[in-house]
């Protein structure tokens, strides 16, 4: 998807979200993510981090307010437009969400297959990336036979294989050792340098401080934004 650098990757305006008739888990959330930015999303458990990410990766529609992704307002987007928007988004789910009946190779290849990429190109790209995340020897393995860390890496590989414009990760380092954790964060940094907009939800405050990117802090459904200590291509635009 061709991006206009002047158009925010994501724009939330007074967004509220409730599940069914329950209380609002997100209240009046407003922000903009500029292209090429890198943000951490922090907050205590139950603060609404995963819900905010779900709105951003189009798993839910907001109960109120406006959500725009890549300049397209989601409320007015047709159902046929959503897959193209989703292909520009990579997601690392907290619970991995790998498909157990598929091999690691096929799981990682999924975004390329749904995009209709040729099998030869898929093979080349997937093998290269699986080698990079240390899963080359597990290409044929099914997810149930992988360790937590291996599943996490396979999930990350699936999220980045199609070179998304927006990458979201929900606790991506939660199940890997420190060395692999920093290696994965380095991958995110490299993708960010190539222009990918990144949002990482994490509990790891040490990593947040060390990397110094802007922080979106959620507390009881309300969002507070703190500028980063490190210079980034663009910053969170609080509204």
């Amino acid at each position, binding site marked *: 998807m061709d991006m206009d650098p002047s158009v925010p990757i994501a724009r939330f305006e007074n967004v509220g979200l409730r599940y069914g008739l329950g209380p609002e888990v997100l209240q009046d959330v407003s922000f903009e993510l500029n292209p090429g930015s890198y943000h951490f999303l922090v907050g205590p458990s139950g603060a609404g981090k995963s819900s905010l990410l779900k709105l951003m*990766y*189009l*798993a*839910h*529609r907001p109960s109120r307010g406006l959500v725009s992704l890549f300049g397209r307002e989601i409320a007015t987007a047709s*159902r*046929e437009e*959503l*897959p*193209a928007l*989703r*292909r520009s988004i990579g*997601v690392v789910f907290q619970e991995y*969400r790998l*498909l*157990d*009946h*598929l091999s690691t190779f*096929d799981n990682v290849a*999924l*975004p390329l*297959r*749904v*995009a209709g990429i040729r099998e030869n190109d898929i093979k080349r790209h997937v093998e290269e990336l699986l080698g990079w995340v240390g899963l080359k020897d597990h290409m044929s393995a099914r997810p149930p036979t992988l360790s937590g860390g291996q599943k996490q890496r396979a999930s990350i590989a*699936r999220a980045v294989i*199609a070179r998304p414009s927006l990458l979201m990760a929900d606790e991506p380092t939660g199940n890997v050792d420190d060395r692999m954790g920093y290696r994965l964060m380095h991958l995110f940094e490299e993708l960010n340098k190539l222009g990918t907009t990144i949002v990482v939800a994490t509990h790891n405050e040490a990593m947040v401080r060390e990397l110094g990117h802007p922080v979106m802090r959620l507390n009881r459904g309300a969002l507070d934004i703190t500028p980063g200590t490190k210079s980034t291509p663009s910053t969170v635009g609080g509204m």
Partner: protein
Amino acid sequence: MFSRRTDLPLDQDPLSRFLPWLIAFMVYLAAMAQSGLIGLDELARRWDTGMAATLTVQIPADPDGGKAANDRRLQKTMNILAQTPGVLHTEVVSESKVLELLSPWLGVVQATDVPLPRLIDVETDPEIELDARVLQQKLASTIKGVQVDDHGIWLARLIQMVRTLEAFAAAVLGLILLAATGTVVFTTRTGLTVHAEAIEVLHLTGAQDSYIAKQFAGRAWGMGLKGGLIGLVLAVPTLVLLGYVADRLQAGMLPDMSMPLAGWLSLIALPLAVGLVAGLTARITVMRNLKRMI
């Protein structure tokens, strides 16, 4: 429309394992109904074309006249028929044939034992309307007791009965198709529920509804075809056996009821048709259900 490779574990659905056998059973019944339909249609068609352009003229024997007098009555009738417009061909039914036709009622008798009527088969020109009642009046004015039978009344009744049976067979075929379609819809909906998690992952990675529907359609097509072939393999020996029994039963009473080539071809096409219907049904079901999701 269909896909062989699948990202969804559709093969592992317990219901999917039974579907080919359910379809096989339905295709078996459908093959029976379809064969009945084709056989009855062929029967009605043959009766219609084979007998509509024929008449039978019956000259009762004159018990006081003797053979010579009866021969004269026959000759007079033949002469009148020869001069009647619309009559193409006449043929006197031999005494031995008449005896054979009467044997179910009279048993084995000789021509000298009973006064035999004389029968004349008349072939008429289908292009010229020949009214059997007018012909009968014309013949009866010269030869006493002559009767003309154009088979029309009982033929019409028989054909009506056959057509009713045909409609019944078609309704049975329709119901079987409806039941098969319903089974595929139910199985597909169950599959959508069972694989909701995987379908959501596919959606979130950017899959179009049609990408997911293609996988369900491919699976349903395969199961439909497999079930159809099993049903056909079971149906063919049954039909051959029924054909054999019918051949022995008809013994000159019924026309040949063997299935025409087109009938066999339509039976062979049945598994393909069922596979296509199953695939299309699954695709439509998935597309409709996915529209309700975000």
